[in-house]
């Protein structure tokens, strides 16, 4: 069966389907849809549907439940197993436990400085101002934060922050926080449905009505009807070949679903390459490549050495050393490797063996155990690391006072969105964003609408959902020669080579040409007949990923400067005229790229920016 990647086609699918299927997903041109028996799907009605069961989704649902609003949280994985559990090092809040002079406005200023002034100031101030309360709340719900000797919440240094502001639970902070949120959600009896994958939002471009999905355990299709839909489905860093996510998470579901439903995307060219990803030893499983070594290793004193044994950060950032911003450290490592001073595997060394074993076990237990299981003793020897795609600053453009996207009743929260982090993200701010904004989105939906019921589904929207189910059935029966997993791997290499740490115009253009080739091959995908298998899931992911890859290559080509995580070798300087965000808008069946200047910070935050606070690495020594 031949499949058509309906990419920028002029086919007016919208007229019959409600949705304008512009680019996402692999769509069959030859389908036996007419023979399909209608009505054999499960239908679920719920006032608020929350897509994504990580910290952002959970916190949103908790806010709704506290207002007495029913929601259903759905996740791709098992109970309690969202990507949040991989967030290791910590969560920022200006509590001032150890540095009383810290203040939310300085937290905001640090965030904006790190974001190279492309952040949405409302987003930044909303998060930083709320964080001390969100931490106290997590504390009251039972998160076992590390403590100072007098029993207050301990805080540690993280890169590019002026004070010790990062609260932590060893190096398993995300896991501990999600555990707390899941407990709170259970207490409030919030229903959760696991192993459900959404493939399409039901939208007419103006308003959202629900979602089309399938059950990953037995493969049956589900139509979710909802008055409000919250997208909390993560980012898209797994598109790059070296990445710190699981293979099948952060595959761009959230932004791709939103774009197709009619929402705008923002800042997609900015992806954070974390400086310290694992470099798999020949004898380890390949999957270890790119896995994260938490920033906390450097926060606790870890040092970087090149293959010549030189502590090279002295040359790149003598004041902040290893704890300079992630983009600075990642580029420094790449520059060392490019200059031939890297290891044989293309990395450098991270060394924390000057710390005591007991210290490492207490402060970095997960890292210590992981390396121990691989036969490396952190207390005795350095580990090899290289940069890895870690976090996508870009995503859905939302109003941060409400979480609203441009599509009525569709909201987004967490890594799926853009705006808090600007051109680069501070470590410890992603967990902060999830809980701070999750509450705001939940509160807003509950107070502005108090949805108790689900509206009936317009016929054309139901027809669109049924059309989507037909597409899924046809995709499951696809028997071409291309393996979805291999196409995804090749896409990863393509993005790494053409839209990686160092980019340039011609290479980005070549990347788009190569992408067109991949799209063509995706027409001949083979899935081998099972909705519950991995190939089918990868084929669904591939649709989302092809969409995002195109947006990445286009926005990266558009930004003709270097700023934050986006580095152009042909435009190596920051250009003051480029203090603008690149906005991606659906324009009929095509995309339109435009620019927008971010707002200005409040007086208080501006004052903190003017004060010029910054981390002095030598405090640590």
């Amino acid at each position, binding site marked *: 069966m031949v499949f058509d990647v309906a990419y920028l086609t002029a086919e007016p699918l919208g007229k019959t389907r409600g949705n304008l299927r512009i680019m996402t997903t692999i769509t069959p041109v030859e389908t036996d849809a007419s023979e399909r028996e209608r009505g054999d799907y499960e239908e679920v009605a719920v006032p608020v549907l929350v897509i994504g069961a990580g910290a952002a989704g959970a916190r949103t649902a908790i806010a709704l439940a506290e207002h007495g609003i029913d929601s259903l949280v759905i996740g791709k994985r098992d109970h309690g197993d969202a990507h949040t559990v991989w967030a290791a090092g910590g969560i920022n809040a200006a509590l001032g436990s150890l540095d009383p002079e810290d203040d939310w406005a300085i937290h905001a200023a640090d965030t904006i400085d790190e974001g190279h002034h492309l952040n949405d100031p409302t987003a930044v101030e909303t998060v930083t101002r709320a964080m001390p309360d969100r*931490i106290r709340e997590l504390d009251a719900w039972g998160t076992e934060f590390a403590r100072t000797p007098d029993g*207050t919440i301990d805080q540690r240094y993280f890169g590019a922050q002026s004070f010790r502001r990062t609260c932590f639970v060893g190096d398993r902070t995300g896991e501990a926080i999600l555990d*707390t949120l899941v407990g709170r959600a259970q207490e409030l009896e919030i229903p959760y449905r696991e192993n459900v994958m959404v493939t399409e939002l039901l939208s007419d471009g103006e308003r959202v009505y629900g979602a089309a999905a399938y059950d990953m355990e037995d493969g049956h299709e589900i139509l979710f009807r909802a008055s409000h839909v919250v997208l909390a489905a993560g980012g898209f860093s797994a598109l790059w070949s070296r990445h710190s996510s699981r293979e099948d998470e952060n595959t761009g579901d959230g932004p791709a679903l939103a774009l197709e439903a009619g929402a705008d995307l923002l800042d997609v060219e900015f992806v954070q390459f974390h400086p310290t990803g694992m470099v798999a030893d020949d*004898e380890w499983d390949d999957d270890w490549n790119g896995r994260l070594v938490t920033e906390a290793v450097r926060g606790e004193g870890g040092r970087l050495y090149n293959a010549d044994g030189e502590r090279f950060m002295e040359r790149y950032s003598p004041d902040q050393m290893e704890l300079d911003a992630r983009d600075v450290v990642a580029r420094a490592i790449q520059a060392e490797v490019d200059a031939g001073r890297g290891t044989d595997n293309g990395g450098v060394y991270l060394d924390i063996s000057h710390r005591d074993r007991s210290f490492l076990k207490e402060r970095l237990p997960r890292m210590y155990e992981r390396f121990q299981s691989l036969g490396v003793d952190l207390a005795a020897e350095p580990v090899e690391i290289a940069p890895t795609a870690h976090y996508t600053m870009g995503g859905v453009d939302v109003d941060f006072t409400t979480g609203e996207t441009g599509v009525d009743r569709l909201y987004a929260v967490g890594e799926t969105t853009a705006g808090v982090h600007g051109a680069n993200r501070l470590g410890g701010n992603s967990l902060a964003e999830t809980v701070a904004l999750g509450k705001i989105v939940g509160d807003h939906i509950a107070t502005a609408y108090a949805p108790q019921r689900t509206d009936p589904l317009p016929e054309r929207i139901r027809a669109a959902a049924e059309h989507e189910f037909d597409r899924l059935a046809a995709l499951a029966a696809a028997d071409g020669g291309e393996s979805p997993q291999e196409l995804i791997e090749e896409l990863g*290499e393509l993005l790494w080579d053409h839209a990686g740490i160092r980019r340039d115009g011609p290479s980005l253009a070549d990347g788009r040409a*190569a992408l067109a080739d991949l799209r063509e091959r995706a027409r001949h995908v083979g899935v081998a007949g*099972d909705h519950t298998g991995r190939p089918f899931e990868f084929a669904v992911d591939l649709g989302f990923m092809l969409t995002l890859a195109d947006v990445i290559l286009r926005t990266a080509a558009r930004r003709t400067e270097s700023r934050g995580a986006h580095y152009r070798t042909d435009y190596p300087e920051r250009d003051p005229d480029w203090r603008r965000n690149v906005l991606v808008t659906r324009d009929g069946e095509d995309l339109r790229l435009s620019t927008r200047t971010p707002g200005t910070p409040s007086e208080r935050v501006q004052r903190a920016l003017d004060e010029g606070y910054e981390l002095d690495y030598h405090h640590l020594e």
Partner: protein
Amino acid sequence: MSTEVKEKETEQTETESVESSHQSRRMEQKRQRASQRDLEEEAREEIDDADETIEIKVFRFDPEVAGKEEPRFDTFHVPFFKGMTVLDALIYARDHYDSSLTFRHSCRQAICGSDALFVNGTQCLGCKTQIADLEGHLNSTIRIEPLPHQEVVKDLVVDMEHFYDQMEAVEPFFDADELPDGELEEQRQDRENREKIKMSTRCIWCGACMSSCNIAAGDNEYLGPAAINKAYRFAMDEREGENRKQQRLNIIEQEHGVWRCQTQFSCTEVCPKDIPLTEHIQELKREAVKNNLKFW
């Protein structure tokens, strides 16, 4: 019937050479692999090349597929590499021999708790269990089964519903001591207390302990080690409010609670996160006794 490989589709398309730099070598290997597309052949070659191979015997059952409704064992030969885990071996078998082989796995680093299995008669996490650590792994067959005492859904996948219900039965959520109205105040917790509960917070809900417990096997209502550990995690936390703690002790003290435990330590032995489960249960027994005395 074992290690049977379905004929794979061999249609292939010319791959345009994607310009690549540092990873070209890896790409080339991948392309070669893609062009072979004969995974059985690949497995055969890898087995020939491998210094060592192992044999795994895997439980199979699928109530919905004709010919698989009867439980059986399939045997797979897998090339051994240093650092190989039980999960790695299963993935190899699935990817090379039988794509219908079904098991849960996700994070591959003992965080998600989805791949608890019964390997050579012991509960363990597939991703954390080194093949090399299994006795006689090169000479005898490694037997991989679903967790005992739980209903099998398909192959190695068991129904976790009952386990989750028991976890929820102890009301695993926290009410801090009374907070001032509308105010959020940071709770103090001294380091010693945090240390006391630290191990109990490591639970990843894998269900290995419950499956290993003889008492739970005979008494379906027994809360089980994981749920009691969860109760411990809150009851022993000095931030927990008095009323809530009282309520929690009432729950664990009931007929199918802590007193069922006969301190056989099987849960403690299998816990992949090294939580001293039996100790925690014992401590809660003491706490319950103390608690009852208080009302004199």
